Each structure stands twice: as C-alpha cells, then as structure tokens.
C-alpha cells in the first residue's frame, strides 16, 4: 500500500522548481508514476510530497521545429509510439518506445520519468544516444541543457540536482541518408540487452557510425572506440570486428552476472545485437551498394 503523502501541483516549471527547492529531500517529482508508484507501493520510497508536474503545459507536446524534435518530459511512451513526427524524424526512438513494457506501462509512463529514473534496463535512452540527444533540466537557478550522454551518470543516478526537474528532450534527426536500427531482447519484463546503431554508408562501407548499448552496464552509453574501428569497413568486416570486441565491451560495460544471465552471456548477446543493429542500419541507409 502506498503510504500517505501530500501532493502539490505547480502549473509552471519555475513553480515546480521552487517547490523542489522548498521541500528538498522530502519531495519527488511525479509524472506518470509508472516507476515511482511501484517503489512507493513496496515501501521502498516514502516521500512526504509528490510534486505533480502533469499540469504544467510546457511539459507536454511533441514538436518538430524544423531542426530538432522536442519532446516534453511528461509525454507518454504511447504518444511517442504513435506520433507521425517521431516516425518521420526519429524512428529509432519510435521503435524503442514501441517495445517498452506493455500497453498500460506505455499509457502511463513518460519519457522524462523513464530517463530521470535511470534504470539501465530501459529502451529509450539507448536509442536516443545515437541521435546525440540532449535534455533540458530546470531548477531555481534556471534551465540548463546538457547532452543525454552527460545526463546519465549511473544506475538510478543522473546529473539532476535535487531541486531540478527534466523538462524537455531534444532529438536531432539523423543526417539525411543515414540508416538506423534498434535491437533488444527481453528475458523477463524489461529489456535484458539492447543496442542501437546509426550509420552513414559510402559505397557499401561504413562512413560514419554511432553505436549505443544499454541494460548491461550501470547506464546506457556510446561505444566510441568501437565506432572509430568500424569506420570504412564493409558489413562482413564490421561484424568481425564487433565479434572480436568482447574484452572492450567488458571494460566499457562492467557486466555482472545475475538472474538474467551470466556476465559472459550478456556480453555475447550485446555483440550479437550490435552486429544485427549495424546490419539493419546499413540496409536502411540511402546508399544501396552495401546490400549483398
């Protein structure tokens, strides 16, 4: 049972930030509640206050401004899954959103809540990293923007100060002609391993590539050294290099064996999904010569 609390309902972001500052440790941001309420029902969290941000209009809305897709923090997964602008400008995100949880979790849960909760077993973060997405966070000191890559710190840990909230996610589209892919497997009810790739191809070879993996380590991250190694390679060579990168992956992801599987299993599947994502992304590029 959820323990009693009080709820405050600001209608602007500065109001919300002011509440967070005033209430301090005793308060939690409440958006969709999909994650938060589970913890509260279990007694793992007993905040005195919930700061309900669902009535802040600026936190809703999915807007393409001609350069970047802007997603309000209180937008639900279901909205993202169905929005034509997402499919047009950030299909990687749309694909990731489609796989989240179940239809109810997608109805109730928000992108902002998902990113701020920072459970590594999550779908959107991995996909957003290959878009070089950024986020706006705002507190009493005003808004600041940072790369999503800098926003994620570790498991359940982000760069949010205690009196800040996530207000918007900015998703630059992939450059024209790039291909994309999002792959994941699920052993229980959340993703166990996932990978995203975004690729520009030239003459059947990888010209530029962005790779992200999630779930296995404490946070989703880009694999920048591996990206460098794949440049200029065709698909077969790229798969080979990925297949030989176990040690690198172990070092980057620091896998831990648990009920989902052994550490070596997780690293292996990470490699498998990366290879599939690269293949899929290449197939989706504007350059058609790579199709064997």
């Amino acid at each position, binding site marked *: 049972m959820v323990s*009693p609390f009080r709820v405050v309902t600001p209608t602007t972001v500065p109001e919300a930030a002011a509440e967070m500052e005033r209430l301090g440790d005793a308060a939690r941001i409440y958006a969709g509640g999909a994650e938060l309420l589970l913890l509260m*029902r279990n007694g793992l969290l007993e905040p005195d206050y919930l700061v309900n941000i669902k009535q802040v209009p600026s936190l809703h809305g999915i807007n393409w401004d001609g350069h970047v897709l802007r997603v309000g923090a209180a937008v639900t997964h279901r909205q993202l899954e169905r929005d034509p602008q997402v499919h047009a400008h950030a299909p990687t995100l749309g694909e990731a959103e489609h796989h989240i*949880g179940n239809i109810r*979790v997608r109805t109730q849960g928000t992108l902002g809540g998902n990113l701020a909760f920072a459970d590594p077993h999550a779908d959107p973060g991995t996909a957003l990293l290959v878009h070089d997405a950024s986020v706006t966070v705002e507190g009493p000191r005003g808004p600041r923007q940072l790369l999503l890559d800098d926003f994620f710190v570790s498991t359940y840990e982000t760069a949010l100060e205690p009196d800040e909230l996530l207000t918007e996610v900015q998703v630059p589209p992939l450059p024209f002609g790039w291909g994309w892919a999002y792959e994941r497997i699920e052993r229980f009810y959340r993703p166990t391993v996932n990978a995203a790739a975004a690729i520009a191809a030239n003459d059947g070879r990888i010209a530029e590539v962005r790779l992200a993996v999630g779930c296995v380590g404490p946070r989703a991250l880009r694999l920048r050294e591996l990206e460098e190694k794949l440049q200029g390679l065709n698909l077969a060579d790229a798969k080979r290099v990925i297949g030989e990168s176990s040690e690198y992956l172990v070092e980057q992801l620091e896998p831990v064996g648990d009920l989902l599987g052994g550490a070596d299993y997780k690293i292996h599947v990470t490699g498998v999904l990366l290879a599939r994502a690269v293949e899929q992304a290449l197939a989706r590029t504007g350059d058609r010569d790579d199709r064997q």
Partner: protein
Amino acid sequence: MIGSELRLQTVQTAPVSLMVNGQPWSGDVPVEEVLLDLIRSRIGLTGTKRGCESEVCGACEVLVDGAPVSSCNFLAFEANGREHTTIEGVADGDQLHPVQEAFIRNVAAQCGYCTSGQIMSAVALLRENTSPTYEEIAQWMVGNICRCGCYPAIARSIMEAGEELRAKGGANGQG
C-alpha cells in the same frame, strides 16, 4: 513535513468527479489511494481485480479515456474529470460485447481471474484495429497474463470478435 513518521493517517484528500461506465461518481479521496481501490471499494465494482500490484499481470486493467491503465498503480485523484470503463461497462445492458460472446464461445476464460483485464485489453485493441494478426495480438496483450493458459482461445476470440465488429461496420459501437 508530515506529522507522524508512521505514515498511517491520510494527510490530504482531493475532490474527484469522474464517470465510470457512463455513470457519474464524486467524492473526496485520499491522494495516496489508487484507482483500483476507488473502483472496488468506494464505487463497489469488484469485477476489476487485484493481482500482482506491479503492472505486470493486467488483472487490474481498466480504460481511462479509452486507454488501458494499471489501476493498481494509478493514483485515484488523477482520475478526476475522466471517463472510465471497467468490465461492468463493456456489455450494453444485457447485450454482451462481441469480445465477451467470443470469450464464452471459445472458453477463453477458465478460472476467470485475469478475464476482466483480458477483455478490457481486447476491447481497446479492437478499437484501434479490427483485424489484428496473431503477432499483433501477442504484442498488444503481452501485459495480460493468464496462468490457466487460455491464450489460444483468447487469440481466437479476439480475431472472431474483430470479424464481427467489421461486419457490423466498425468498432465504436460499444464499451
């Protein structure tokens, strides 16, 4: 700060006015109360069930403004101003919804405990798509667990109900 560290007493209530199955309800509700308890205990509609209380099983599923929600983890005050459909509101009086009739015909319910959630989910799916493939049904219904193993009959029922709804000219007649 809340006075008692034991957190036993409600410290805030919220006025809630909502529609359930076309009927209005209003009252003051503790802010920590979940929609499941409002529906079952205050309104007295016990067709929606308490299962895992973790959004996994779907036994507590209701439709809020037509969208599927885990009422076990949905704060009741959020229901203010919204329209709700529970299992008791799926039939039109004595006339069962095609999904309900198909469930009976195919025995898509055995113990029946997950059935309310299965039907709510199926009704929502068919409003979006009256001819789902097996894969589409599997993807939509992933959060509706049936331990008795009625899945083949559930899938059959959804497909048959979809056919019937198409024949009647669309999914928006009922529920």
